[in-house]
């Protein structure tokens, strides 16, 4: 962003002000995440930087809270992590399956009432979570699925499918349908065509939709709060209770792990997006 030499002074000043504002906003966005990092290695029980930490005294840092997270007695994190992963994996599979198939139908130009149906399928993403939570709770209570893993998985499928529908329809919008017609004319049946031709081409969209569904489920707390019993506690529920009751540094250790996980997901999603754009021939 070098300025040309002939720039007038007041524009020059304005340019630096603009860069300064942008720096501040980026700082505001990203800095809060990095506060958690050092504090999770705090040797003391406080949630602020101790004198020792400010002086970079090695004794002020420890892995105490990570040990507590993993080995701590009556610590719920083990069970919560197990539940979270099980629920998120099944919810992702369900969302991807239902969402991809629906997206295939929606992308067909023969689809009747496309707008209305699309709006219905996307609605769980738009409707405030608290309302979704109440509605889903009423259903699960009637169906006898409250406080079961199945109930929570179904709830997360509801919340996750819109993301899959959106990403897969977006991928399919640049899809050249003549390749499937070519496959059919060469004698391939529809299922075979889908598995051999369509799926590999839309896979980046499917996976990135799946990542969204996974993160949605893994991070979801509002609906789970209505549905979960003691047995079905998840990481977000434990975080929520921890944050409401006592803010212990163990939460920060968990939070650090979650940030690392989200970084991994971000990198995967970005790589997929680029690959998908390359495949669709969009150069931006």
């Amino acid at each position, binding site marked *: 962003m070098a300025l040309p030499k002939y720039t007038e002074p007041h524009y020059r000043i304005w340019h630096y002000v603009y860069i300064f504002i942008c720096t501040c906003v980026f700082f505001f966005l990203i800095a809060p995440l990095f506060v958690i990092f050092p504090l999770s290695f705090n040797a003391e029980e406080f949630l602020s930087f101790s004198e020792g930490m400010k002086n970079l005294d090695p004794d002020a840092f420890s892995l105490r809270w990570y040990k507590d997270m993993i080995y701590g007695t009556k610590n719920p994190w083990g069970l919560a992590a197990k539940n979270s992963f099980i629920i998120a994996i099944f919810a992702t599979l369900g969302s991807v399956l239902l969402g991809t198939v629906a997206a295939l139908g929606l992308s067909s130009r023969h689809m009747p009432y496309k707008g209305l149906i699309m709006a219905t399928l996307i609605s769980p993403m738009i*409707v405030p979570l*608290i309302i979704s939570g109440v509605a889903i709770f009423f259903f699960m209570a009637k169906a006898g699925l409250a406080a079961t893993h199945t109930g929570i998985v179904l709830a997360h499928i509801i919340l996750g499918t819109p993301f899959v529908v959106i990403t897969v329809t977006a991928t399919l919008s640049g899809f050249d349908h003549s390749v499937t017609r070519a496959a059919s004319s060469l004698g391939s049946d529809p299922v075979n065509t889908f598995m051999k031709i369509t799926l590999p081409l839309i896979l980046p969209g499917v996976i990135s939709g799946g990542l969204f569904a996974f993160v949605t489920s893994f991070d979801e707390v509002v609906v789970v709060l209505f549905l979960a019993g003691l047995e079905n506690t998840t990481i977000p529920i434990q975080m929520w209770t921890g944050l409401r009751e006592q803010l212990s540094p163990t939460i920060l250790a968990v939070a650090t792990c979650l940030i690392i996980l989200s970084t991994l997901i971000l990198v995967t999603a970005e790589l997929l997006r680029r690959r998908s754009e390359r495949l669709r021939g969009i150069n931006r």
Partner: protein
Amino acid sequence: MSSETGKILTTDGIPLEVSLKKAERKNKIKAFLLVAPLLLFLLITYIFPIGDMLMRSVDDKMVTEMLPKTFKSMEKWDGNEMPPEEVFEAFYLDFQKLVEEKRDGKLSTQLNYTKNGFKSILKKLRRKAKNFEEGNYKEQIMAVHKRWADVEYWRAIKRRAPAFTSAKYLKGMDMYKNEEGEIVSVEEDRRIHRVLWLRTLEIAFFVTLLCFLMAYPIAHLLATLPMKYSNLLMICVLLPFWTSLLVRTASWMILLQQQGVVNDFFVMIGLVADDNRPEMMYNKTGTYVAMTQILLPFMVLPLYSVMKTISPSLMRAGKSLGGTPFVTFWKVYFPLTIPGIGAGCLLVFILAIGYYITPALVGGASGTLISNQIAFHMKSTLDWSFASAMGLMLLAGVLAIYWVYNKLVGIDNIKLG
């Protein structure tokens, strides 16, 4: 071409038009069958339960079912004078049945909602009714307590006859139906829900505004920087976007608490005294700061995707035609970004208006929103019909915005990541 071959035929002799229509229908069914599983799943587990919420919110069958004979006999009564004997008789029969089934307590609670004073006179009636003689129930009931001779109380019972009520919705707006059936507001100092609705709108509006003001410059920077720098900076936007909401809220709790990092910093630079650290959490400030940071990526991404499509040569053209950078920006660049602004603002507003987790954790009493009230009634007071009514009022607002969003942007154009 002769007239009989006016219709083009396919090889098997069927007119082409018919054949094409058939194929078209087949394709339609095929497409629909693909969508059907998800649509059906959502209808059963999601859309119908929202309808169920609607039913719950207006449902008032309880009293209707408890006093069937009374309400039937009341149909002819105009409500001006004391009801005739048959109403009293029907009420006596209904009431005795309830006493036998031990459901009279529920009736007295319900009627007491409608008009204060029913509890004691129903109790008294229960005691005396055991010794009632057959016939002339009107006099016997009126003799139990002077309120039973007051036509107001009978009108109050009649008001509970309909199986549906708008009472929960009125309560959500701090209004109620008075004895004349007019809709009036509750006293000024008890209007808690209106305060909450207004606060929700206010916070959603200002969070949207703050997000817009902060997102516009950085989206512009991201869109104009060379790819290799902008990709790096994009991580600053995407990492919070992918990070758990609770983690981000936790980090704000650490930053904003009284012994927290921000306050430490203020003390260090001498902005505030150590013993006079400002309260930045558990109030509106906390809600504003945390919600703005959390929703900021949702504003940046749509703005960025629109700005990316604006050719830099437009700005150069504007400048070469004699516009100063500011004029060129305002007349050329800004109008082109309006679709992005619309999309981003609507998205952030929709998300902000239904926010629950962050206000509940950092909002304290003065920073909570309507969602928190709904959760409170679902979990603490167990007034599910009221929670449903409030939820649906919120939903109506959100759907209106969603509709506008769909008209302006199109839901197919929502971009993720």
